């Protein structure tokens, strides 16, 4: 039986704020009939506006959702409302799933088994066309050469006049045309540094790292990492066909970011035995469903396939074996966390985000907020403000805290209370 998730964990699965609200409207026991939970599924029938109730069920091990309502939101409010009811201990246990639930679960299992039985073979015509690949290499090289000249020009003329948000627009378009979307994305986000008081230093850092990337690409150094950052695509199939790492992965937290009507969701994991950090990235246009299968504070026994790189972080869940009992993840003292980050930067100097778990740390102050212990602490990201939830949970006592390391400070993700329950920060 899977341990019940708490309310924050359930709401974190909602595709947007309006879904969260709608889900709460259908989370009362009165709305549901024939609800039950057994093994790894929870199900129920929710009275809708029509004569027939909607049938919703959730496979908790994934989690995966199904509902007979016509909503395009995913998971829909019924699935979420059902989970909220379950999280409030409002769904009675059952020995067996209802028939229609069992049927769906069987179908899912059959589908999951299929690709394994018939591994995808390369379809004719899917093999990379060497001529087109060559063409892309040339285009990218030309685009990057132009960027390199542009950066040098900036240095010669000075960046004092660059404090304009449209400063990079033309450049970004040319980089997109040059089929270097990774670099184009990095350049398009440069405008964000302008709000910083210290923007000239931030901008110089960003330019210098771009220069480093272009040089590395020209010299064919750190190949998979550099090619990934430039924007050469790696298909899911390629990633999944590589080596996988099996472990019990703790889901530390997540962050959604919107840019140009596209939401990117970052979910950070760490392996309990291997200590490996992982990032599962997914995208969806604003208002559409994001991957909601990784719930903060839960753990899963799974195989992860990492994207190639010299400090691999981004990964795909290749095979899920089972849910694992949730517990606070093992952490490290702040010194060890810094070493880990240094090692990641040695492999990939462009790393600007790395999930860490700090053991026995307390919030501290020195004008701004830090997180650390007797030997000192790491600063928090300015966007964290005063981390009141964290301060309250700590009460000055040491805690295990999962956070996203960034060059500008830690962003707290989650912590665990005295009873070992996750608190989303």
């Amino acid at each position: 039986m899977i341990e019940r998730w708490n309310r924050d964990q359930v709401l974190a699965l909602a595709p947007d704020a309006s879904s969260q609200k709608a889900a709460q409207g259908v989370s009362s026991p009165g709305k549901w009939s024939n609800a039950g939970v057994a093994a790894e599924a929870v199900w129920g029938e929710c009275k809708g506006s029509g004569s027939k109730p909607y049938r919703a069920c959730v496979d908790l091990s994934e989690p995966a959702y199904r509902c007979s309502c016509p909503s395009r939101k995913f998971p829909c409010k019924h699935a979420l409302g059902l989970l909220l009811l379950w999280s409030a201990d409002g769904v009675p246990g059952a020995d067996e799933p209802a028939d229609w639930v069992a049927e769906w679960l069987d179908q899912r299992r059959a589908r999951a088994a299929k690709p394994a039985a018939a591994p995808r073979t390369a379809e004719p015509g899917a093999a990379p066309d060497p001529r087109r690949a060559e063409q892309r290499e040339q285009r990218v090289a030309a685009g990057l050469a132009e960027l390199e000249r542009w950066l040098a020009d900036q240095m010669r003329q000075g960046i004092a006049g660059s404090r304009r948000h449209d400063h990079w627009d033309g450049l970004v378009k040319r980089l997109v045309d040059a089929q270097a979307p990774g670099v184009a994305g990095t350049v398009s986000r440069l405008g964000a540094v302008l709000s910083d008081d210290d923007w000239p230093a931030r901008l110089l850092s960003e330019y210098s790292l771009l220069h480093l990337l272009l040089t590395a690409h020209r010299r064919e150094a750190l190949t998979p990492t550099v090619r990934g950052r430039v924007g050469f695509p790696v298909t899911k199939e390629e990633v999944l066909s590589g080596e996988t790492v099996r472990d019990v992965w703790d889901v530390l937290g997540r962050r959604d970011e919107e840019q140009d009507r596209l939401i990117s969701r970052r979910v950070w994991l760490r392996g309990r035995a291997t200590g490996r950090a992982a990032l599962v990235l997914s995208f969806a246009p604003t208002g559409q469903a994001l991957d909601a299968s990784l719930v903060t504070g839960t753990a899963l026994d799974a195989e992860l396939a990492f994207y190639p790189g010299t400090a691999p972080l981004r990964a795909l869940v290749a095979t899920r074996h089972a849910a694992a009992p949730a517990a606070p993840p093992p952490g490290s003292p702040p010194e060890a966390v810094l070493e880990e980050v240094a090692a990641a930067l040695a492999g990939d100097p462009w790393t600007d985000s790395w999930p860490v778990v700090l053991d026995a740390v307390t919030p501290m102050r020195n004008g701004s907020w830090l997180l650390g212990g007797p030997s000192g602490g790491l600063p928090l990201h300015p966007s964290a403000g005063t981390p009141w939830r964290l301060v309250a949970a700590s009460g000055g006592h040491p805690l295990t805290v999962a956070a996203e390391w960034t060059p500008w400070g830690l962003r707290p993700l989650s912590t665990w209370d005295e009873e070992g329950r996750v608190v989303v920060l």
Partner: protein
Amino acid sequence: MADTMTAWEDLVSTALVGTDRRPLPAGPGDPAAELLERAAVQTVRARAGQRLRAGRPLDVAPPEEQPALPRAAGDRLARILGGERPRLLAEWLQTAAGRGYRLSPHLLPELLDHAARDRSIRPHLGVLAGRRGRWLAGLNPTWSFLSQEATAAGPRPEVWELGTSGDRRAHLAALRAADPAAARELLATTWEKESPEDRAAFLELFAEGLSLDDEPFLEAALDDRRREVRHEAADLLTRLPDSRLGRRMAERVADRFTVLGGKILVNPPSACDAAMERDGVRAKPPQGTGEKSWWLQQIVARTPLGVWSELLGRPPRELVRMKITDWGREVLAGWVRAAVLQGDPEWARELFASDPLADLLAVLPRDEQESAAAAFVRGHALDGQLIMVLGGAAAPWGPELARAVLQRILDFSRTQPWNIGELGKLAGERVDPALYGLAERFSLEPPIQEVAALLRFRDDMLKELQ
């Protein structure tokens, strides 16, 4: 370290104006590429070589004394805070505080923010915050109000000297309930040193166990520097017909009211003298009210209600129905105010019959309140007054009023379904939640089932907090 800092500052300065105008100190190759390369080295070095920084740890919060909230109750609180049935927050907090629980620490910031905006929930938070909450509030000036609220700590003798205002209020209230004279004597020992706000708040507690023994103390308080204190004292003295204030008021009305030919004739006061002001009559009328009318209303409101039957020779039942020449509105308003202020059920009952007001309803004994409200609901249209009057009927409503209101919801759902929302919510919030079964069986119509769902939510909520 200092060198690398200077080196980095130099690089930034150069980048700002450009290498054309501010060449780098001699280096091989293109100065622009050189600048970028040196900056890259510094950037990665700074990131990878980050060191721990010194910081002041927070003082450790003291250990808790109160029991932790049951898990299910905490989850439900999070649901309410998250927007599910937000109007139940106050009831949740009140119940949980009454049971002496403390909140899970991570919920504290959100609730303290709530209480910063909404004063009414602060007393509950005083208990629920526990020692962690007080510790936390000490770190944020926005939450400093918490230190004024009573804690869960039981009554202790040193509280009167050392406690928060809230603790002292709670202590005095408990003492007043047990031994009114002891409470009065305790307050008298520190009266001169109390802040005006505290004096007014403490005096308010004298409503409990009020007797003629309090009269000298209250009479003295009529000369207090603070208006709120004077008014509170005057309000309390009004409830003591044998008080000096009561007698002065009786004298003031004595030659102004007469009965002639079955009508009451009134001669309103033509001035508001210092003695009237001392007894709580405000001299300056609000905008739009005439002076005489204003003074008349007030002296009627502050005259002990027992005076009237003696003065005019009729029981309240007849008085409220008599014709009053010219000043009827003022006199009735004064009587209503007096019935509420003096908590007089007999007058309230008679006045409610002709002027159904929530405040009057609230003065009636519980059983009577409920049947009076039920009778009113059965015969009244769906309007703002219906909601207001029902608001005066103390929760939890029993079966009689519950049935009456449910029936009206059902009636109105057929004639003006768009208008029943507020009535449904009020029923869901005020009916005794244990009666959810009654509501569920009452009718299968959605508006009734909505009420039933709300009652059930509250029933579960209260059970979790047991």
